[in-house]
Structures are given as structure tokens and as C-alpha cells.
């Protein structure tokens, strides 16, 4: 009977790959200029630095929970880089590179982990809107897939050539909302790209406990969507297939489903302790050898796009930006308690008015329950 940890099953590796684990091209590289390549590199690094920093802040209690992208960065990065301004990205908690690539202010990323009310962050951080649209990251999983497809329906019906990209985890494919999003995407032929960031784990459950399908890519069959399966640790492969999908979507060819095979190197988040359920010493080694950043760096250096000097410059710049962002985020003061009522409905009802008054009294040390007529808090 006894089962202590899961035995992992490595998924098939017959996926699309451009850059091999040693950082050598297996086939033609995508057409990217040097500055575009460096932009990818910069995002890789800034993700690592930022997340490392946030991890420290979590340890010291400044932020409450951190979920890292570590080791999976090529997937959100390659996907996001395939988009254009005005496109939409529906993300989860594991796509930091997609946010940073499109200049979602780092301070906002940090702030969102502090647990401040959204209005507080918006007001106290004087930041610019990124060129790509990010709806909110939300906690419940699967939900964003359906919403993203709705977003793409809006584009289709308005004949806009905007594309919506959505990221979902492997575990999240089990949700009804994943099913709905995929199905509606097929029926309405929408300009969407649905990316499954298959890191093989959903908290403590390996993907063989999530589905019996051999690949996640083949789930697209159920919905009549074209699919791709790529090495999720190869930013070129992800970029190329995402670009094809974006192009198809933008030109009216409908939605595509892309499985990016990667691996969750660490804990689910800072509340999690994977030692309890997986013994991944062997897997770790295997996946460390396939690290997306190392691989890309090797390539850049071998192509002469990156040298020690540029690297140092980039790293310095990132350190500075992260430090600034941390300062900015730290400067946010706690919300006014009454904030909790903001943006519930557009207009204040009697109830809202009344409960605000109750809260106000309580905070002032006055008894909030003194209204016995319904008119006690007026005027």
C-alpha cells in the first residue's frame, strides 16, 4: 500500500526544438535582430533577479507569497515575444517573463504580492500602462482560458486584428473552464493562442495524475484546434510556434493550442515543500542540463551577440531596475480600510454607505452598532 512520493514519468520528447540543450541550433533560428535577442536575454535575467529578490522579501515577511517561473521562463517569454502592441495576455502566477517583456512595471509585480488592495497599488504607483494589455492575474485556475476566448470573440466580432494569448498550467487543463475555453475557441474560430505551460506538476500532483492523454497537445483534437508541442525550455521553439499561431490568429485562421514542455524546478510557491511528495534529484539534474537561460546565453555568446561586457552591463542595469522597483513597492503604504468597499458596485447603496460608516466608527473606537432606525448614519 505504502506510497510516499510520486514516481515521475518523463513526457515524450518528440517535440519541436530549435536550440538544443547545448545551445546549438538544430535548425534555422527565428529571424530576430540582435537587439531583439538581447531583449529576450534581458527579460530572462530580470525575471531571475526579480524573483530571487522577491523570494528574499518573502522570507523577511515583506511579501506574502511568491510563485516562481524559475526554469520555465522560455515558455512565457517566447510566447509573449510573439505578440504585438495592443494584443492581450491572460496570465497566471507563473508568467513573470511575459509581464516583464512587455514592460509591466516591476514594482507592480512586487506590489501584487504584498496583498495591498488593487486601488492602493494603482494610486500609489505612478506607472505607465504597458503596450500590451494585461487583464488581472487571478487566483482561481482555468478561468482565464474561457475569459481569454471571450476576449478573442470580441475581437473577431469587431473585425479587429488584435490577438489574445492565454497561459494555463498542466493541472488547470482539468478544469471545466479549460474545456469551455477550448471548445468555444474552436466553434467561434477566434484569434487566440492558448499555451499550456506544462511544467509537469500541479502543486503535489504529477501530470500523469492529471490526465491519461499522452501529451497535452493532443487535447486540442477534442476541439478541432490545431496544436503544437514544443520544447518549453527553448525560447526559439516557443517563439517560432507562437509566432505562427499568432500570425494564423491575426489573419483570421482561428485559434491554436500549444503545449510547451518544461519542468517546475522548485516548489509550487513559497508555502510549498516539494520534498514531501517528489524525489526529483534525478529529474532536476536532467532539467538543469536543459536550463532555458544557460542554453540561450550559450547561443548568444557563440553567435557573438553577447560578450562579458554586455552581459555585465545588462546585469547592472537589471540590478538597478529591481532595486528601484523594490523601493517603489516598499513605499506603498497600507490601504485605507474603507478601500475594501471601493469598486464593488459603481454606485453606493444604502448598505455600502451604512457599512462604511460602521467601519469608520469602529476604527475611531466608536460603537458601530448604534443605529437603530436606519437613519443613524445619515448626513
Amino acid at each position: 500500500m505504502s506510497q510516499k512520493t510520486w514516481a515521475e514519468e518523463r513526457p515524450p520528447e518528440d517535440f519541436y526544438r530549435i536550440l538544443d540543450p547545448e545551445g546549438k541550433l538544430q535548425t534555422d533560428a527565428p529571424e530576430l535582430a540582435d537587439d531583439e535577442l538581447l531583449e529576450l536575454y534581458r527579460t530572462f535575467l530580470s525575471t531571475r533577479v526579480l524573483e530571487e529578490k522577491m523570494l528574499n522579501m518573502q522570507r523577511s515577511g515583506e511579501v506574502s507569497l511568491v510563485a516562481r517561473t524559475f526554469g520555465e521562463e522560455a515558455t512565457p517569454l517566447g510566447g509573449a515575444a510573439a505578440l504585438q502592441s495592443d494584443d492581450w495576455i491572460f496570465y497566471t502566477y507563473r508568467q513573470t517573463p511575459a509581464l516583464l517583456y512587455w514592460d509591466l512595471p516591476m514594482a507592480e509585480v512586487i506590489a501584487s504580492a504584498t496583498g495591498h488592495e488593487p486601488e492602493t497599488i494603482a494610486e500609489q504607483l505612478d506607472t505607465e500602462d504597458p503596450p500590451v494589455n494585461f487583464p488581472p492575474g487571478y487566483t482561481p485556475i482555468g478561468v482565464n482560458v474561457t475569459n481569454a476566448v471571450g476576449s478573442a470573440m470580441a475581437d473577431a466580432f469587431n473585425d479587429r486584428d488584435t490577438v489574445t494569448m492565454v497561459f494555463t498550467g498542466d493541472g488547470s487543463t482539468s478544469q471545466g473552464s479549460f474545456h469551455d475555453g477550448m471548445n468555444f475557441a474552436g466553434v467561434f474560430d477566434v484569434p487566440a493562442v492558448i499555451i499550456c505551460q506544462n511544467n509537469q506538476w500541479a502543486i503535489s500532483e504529477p501530470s500523469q495524475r492529471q490526465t491519461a492523454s499522452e501529451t497535452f497537445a493532443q487535447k486540442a483534437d477534442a476541439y478541432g484546434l490545431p496544436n503544437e508541442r514544443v520544447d518549453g525550455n527553448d525560447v526559439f521553439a516557443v517563439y517560432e510556434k507562437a509566432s505562427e499561431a499568432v500570425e494564423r490568429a491575426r489573419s483570421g485562421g482561428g485559434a491554436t493550442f500549444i503545449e510547451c514542455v518544461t519542468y517546475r524546478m522548485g516548489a509550487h510557491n513559497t508555502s510549498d515543500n516539494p520534498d514531501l511528495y517528489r524525489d526529483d534529484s534525478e529529474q532536476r539534474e536532467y532539467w538543469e542540463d536543459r536550463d532555458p537561460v544557460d542554453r540561450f546565453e550559450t547561443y548568444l555568446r557563440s553567435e557573438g551577440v553577447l560578450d562579458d561586457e554586455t552581459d555585465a552591463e545588462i546585469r547592472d542595469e537589471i540590478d538597478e531596475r529591481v532595486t528601484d522597483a523594490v523601493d517603489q513597492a516598499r513605499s506603498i503604504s497600507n490601504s485605507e480600510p474603507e478601500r475594501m468597499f471601493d469598486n464593488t458596485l459603481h454606485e453606493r447603496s444604502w448598505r455600502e454607505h451604512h457599512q462604511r460608516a460602521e467601519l469608520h466608527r469602529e476604527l475611531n473606537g466608536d460603537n458601530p452598532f448604534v443605529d437603530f432606525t436606519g437613519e443613524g448614519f445619515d448626513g
Partner: protein
Amino acid sequence: MGSESEQLELNTDEMSMESEPDTEEMNLITAVNRTLRQEMNRNESVRLLGYDIGPLGGVYRGTEGLLEEFGGERVIDTPLSENGIIGTAAGMAMRGERPVPEIEFMGFFYPAFGQFMYAVVKTYKRTGGELEMPMTVRMPYGGGVKALEYHQESTETYFVHTPGVRVVCASTPAQTKGLLAESIRNDDPVIFLEPKKIYRGVEEPVPTDEYTLPLDEARVVRSGSDVTVLTWGAMVHQANAAAADVDADVEIIDLRSLSPLDIETILDSVSKTGRCVVLHEARRTLGLGAELSALINEYALDRLKAPIKRATGYDAHFPGHDIEDDYLPDDDRARYAIQAVMNYEF
């Protein structure tokens, strides 16, 4: 059922119209249909989603003719998934559309509860007011039509307990037009309940011009000095029938907005009459009557001349056809409750 003349009177100044508007006699479902058409003409972002709303025009024909007039990108027949409908509608709303999804029957909303809780009611807050969710979910609700299980439910409690959404219920054709138009124009998500039992039962003159009715004001259907009946939807008509048939001067309030409540109108009335009955189809335990009673207790206890009685559906599953009339409250049950509170003495 007694006379229904009172509730058919339109409170015209409420509609901020000139006197003597042109009207057309119509029933409630026709009012729904006309209002959808009006709003779709008025605003291109209004899109209907649901199953069976296209060529069929809705199982109750609420969307009849709209596909022909507006095409398949405005009247969208979807796959058979309530969660998919609400979830894609939410995505559309995030992009500036004004989706008006139809859920075929209130009792089929439940698979959509995830999207409702996670995307619909929270987005506005979650984005600090940046993304709005102007969605109006139309649902036929209520019993008395001898349909199968889940076709007769009245479960507004699940919505009323939830922040970030309005719950509106119309009781007559003219009310329907004004309230539905306002719901669609409103920037909050709205659950719009249509009392299907009286989709076709009751006709009244409905002004042909555009008008809206406020979402935050209950409507005094009938003034009286002895006892207040708080109700909505199809039950307004039962309350009227009971009022006509009881030895008391009954004030009837049609809540119209079940969430948030127009507490001032409610308290004013009960403070005046000192007695109150709530009449609703929903199950009693934590039916909206519970909240109404609690509010009155909290803010008008000293005015009460009698306990508040709740004439409601029972805390049981909606039963089979053979006994559904015994389950549902009606004018008799309303009358009993009125008499009970009238006869009460401390």
C-alpha cells in the same frame, strides 16, 4: 387570483416622460424581446449569448427575430455550457462589450458558478475599477409552470449574498422594459430575473418610447396603512390578489432590486404600518425574506406591532407537478400571513 389592476398602473413620472405617452399592449416576454431589440439598436456593443437563442429565438421566444435582424455576431448561439457562456461573456465584457447572456432556466445556472464568482463579480474590484463588467444575465425563474426539476427554481439567494453584482426582478411588462434597459446600460453586472410564469399571463400598455427605471428603488404597488407586504416578480400579483381579499389596508412593495435593497422605502413602509409579511417563492431558510426580516428587526424593531411572517416556498426540493401548487406560495398563503400578523397581539 384576485384583481390585478393596481400593479398594472404605470408610475409614469418615474419614467421621466411627458404625459400621455404612446403605449402598446403587450405581455412580459414581448417586453423583453422589444427591449433587447431597442438596446441592440442603441448600442452596438450589446450582444446576446446563449443556447437556443438564435433561429429558435429562445425556448420562451425572448430573442425571437433578433438573429435575423442583427446577425450571428450579435445574437450568438453558443455550445451548451453555462460556464462557457458566462466565462466568454466575461471576457467580452473585459473588452468593452455589453454581453447579455441568457441562461435558459435559472436552475441551469449552477455549472456557471465558478465563472460567475471568479470572473463576473470580482473583475471590477480586482482591477481597482479599471476593467468593468457590464453584463446582464437574463434568466427565467420561478415555478408554477409544471416543468421538470430545476425548471422552476427561485434561488436568488445565491446571487444576493454575493457582492459585486446587482439582482433585479421585473413583475410586469412595463417594469420589464424600463428595468431591463437600465440593467443593460448599467456598468455593473446584473442578474436579471424574469418571472416565466407570467411571461404571457399578464398584458399591460407599455410606452413605446425608450425609458429606464431605476435599479435602486423599490416600487410601492399599492399603499396601505395596516401591513406591508414585501415581494417581487410573479408574487406581486398574488400579493395584490390577497390584498383585495383581506380585511386590512395592505401596502404592497415590489422590491424590483433584490440586491442591493432599497432599504429606505422598506423601512419607511414598515415604520408606518408596523406589520410586515414577506412573500417569495424561494425556500424560506435564507431566502431573501430572512434578510428583510433581519433588517427590519435591526432598524425598526420598536415600530413592530407583530412578528414578521414569511410566506414562502418550503425548505424542500421543488416537488413534482402533482403537488407543486401546494409548494408554491399564492394569494391564500399571503392572506394567511397577513391575517396572522394583523391578529397578533403582544
